[in-house]
């Protein structure tokens, strides 16, 4: 479904990614792990066209992702969440989710200004769909609350709801349980598992929480200093000497 090949990104003298290659098969969940600064988020940014790699290709269902304009990525069925929340803080939770459904609307500026009947209809549909998602994720209570000043765990769910509103087939989660408490991590893991099932999602997850990654993913890719040092099933990765050396560490 997604094929990353030979991606290299350099920021000045720093090589953030160096010839990284891996694939994501439809319906699977792939974990991306590695020490801080290994290039995981940079890779996500390449996939969503936030930054342009210096070399390499990214193909999504036989289409060159790097040739797309950045705003078209969502339309192809790719959504993401952000490491430190990328919500719209002054919009309500519901509006945030409705922005996620931006690509499903057709209303142009003129029709919107005149508020034609079809604009009303579309608004109602988008709103209903957003409300469905909010109910599904247990966010109905905060629908009219601005997407700031809520508990961090709630905001993480809002971001997930917004990403689901894109109707993605490939969902990129950037440190989804970073900053959550122990109990919240388990809840969030259950939530991700159930939406994966319900929405038929393929997942690519960056996360430091090993319990979360190993429990969720079918395959794990480990990066270190911009290079892929290992790829394999969670069990293989946990035994891989290079991964243990670079990242997991040995028991004292």
């Amino acid at each position, binding site marked *: 479904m997604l094929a990353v090949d030979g991606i290299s990104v350099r920021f000045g003298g720093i090589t953030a990614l160096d010839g990284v290659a891996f694939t994501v098969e439809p319906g699977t969940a792939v974990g991306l792990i590695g020490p801080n600064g290994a290039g995981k988020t940079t890779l996500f940014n390449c996939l*969503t066209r*936030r930054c342009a790699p210096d070399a390499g290709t990214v193909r999504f269902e036989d289409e060159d992702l790097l040739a797309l*304009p*950045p*705003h*078209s*990525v*969502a*339309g192809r069925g790719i*959504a*993401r969440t*952000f490491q430190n929340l*990328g*919500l*719209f*803080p*002054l*919009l309500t939770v519901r*509006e945030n989710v*409705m*922005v*996620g459904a*931006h*690509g499903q*609307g057709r*209303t*142009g*500026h003129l029709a*919107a*200004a*005149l*508020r034609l009947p079809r*604009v009303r209809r*579309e*608004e109602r549909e*988008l709103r209903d769909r957003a409300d469905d998602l909010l109910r599904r994720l247990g966010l109905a209570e905060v629908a009219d609350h601005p997407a700031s000043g809520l508990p961090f765990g709630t905001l993480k769910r809002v971001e997930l709801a*917004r990403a689901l509103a*894109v109707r993605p087939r490939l969902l990129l989660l950037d440190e989804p349980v970073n900053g959550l408490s122990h109990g919240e991590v388990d809840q969030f893991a259950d939530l991700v598992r159930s939406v994966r099932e319900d929405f038929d999602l393929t997942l690519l997850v960056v996360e430091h929480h090993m319990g979360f990654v190993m429990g969720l993913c079918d395959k794990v890719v480990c990066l270190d200093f911009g290079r892929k040092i290992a790829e394999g099933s969670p069990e293989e990765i946990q035994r891989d000497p290079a991964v243990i050396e670079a990242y997991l560490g040995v028991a004292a």
Partner: protein
Amino acid sequence: MSTIVATLGTDRARRLRAALTTLLVAAVAVSAPFYFAPFQVFQLTMVLLYAVALAGLNLLVGFGGQISLGHGAFFAAGAYTAAVMLDRYDTGHLATLPVAAAGCFLLGLGFGVPALRLRGLYLALVTLAFAVFLPPLLKRLEPVTGGSMGLTVDKLQPPAWSGMAEDQWTYFVVLAVTAVSLLLARNLLRSRVGRALLAVRDNESAAEVMGVRLSLHKTLAFAWSALFAGVAGCVYTWVIGFVSPDSFSFVLSITLLAGLVVGGLASLYGPLLGAAFVMYVPSVAQDISEAAPGVVFGLLIIAVMFVAPTGLAGLAGRVRGTAARRLIRTTTPAADDDRPSGSEPSAPPTPADPAAVDAEPVGAPPRPEKE
């Protein structure tokens, strides 16, 4: 279940309150010209037309998160479009409105393109340059614009059947234009494109990841914003019947931006409050200090921003919030059931409450931007 019932209740209450408010405002707006003296009606007319320009600026600055110090120039473009059409081609007044609107829309579209690459202070500077260079240009294009002498054109004349005086008829025409403009702006914001604009303001890169095409929404925000400024300018020509380059110096642009910030950024009725501020406060300032009205005007702006950092439109909410907090603090043990919000201890004084200013006798010339 009970929450659903409760939300239904509040929803209906809110709708009812909105309908009542609209009705009340409409009644006041329609009866106003029959109560006030012609000069005061003229001032109200100017408030309405400034509100259109501020609503346009609000789309760009308040909701779009961009900045423009050049909206006076779009205003001028609209005004001159109307004046030239009336002067040279003798089209009716009404015909000038769509032309001015379309022209300014295109002009704004043109300006939206560099705005994609510039932001913050750089964009402010470029738009300011536009506002600074337009008046000399208008002076140079003498054959069309009348040069420094400007153009004098016919004002709106009331048709015989209306039985109204000139100022009343003008007021109603401008009221209609303003109402339609504000409605269009509101519709725009309450839609997919409006949400996209707000999303871009709040977090550009997240908006783009969600599929919002930044270039489209940012340039169109500029274009719509310019359109409203142009409509205001066009109506200005109808009302004043005279345009000259000196009426549209860059001070106008700055006054508009100041008015918007004072009225309340990203608020739907902030432009109206801001327009009242821009219209009345300079003349109040003149009454307070003959020598330096500008200083008093500036001080009043500072005072408003100090008391109401979110603008006059946000003041009511802030006062209510403070009052509620104080109430809770003083009456915590008491039952928390029906506590009417009417018991607000008429909190912090509002130095520039437009309603209070409204009643001031104003003798100064109506143009807020002097020199």
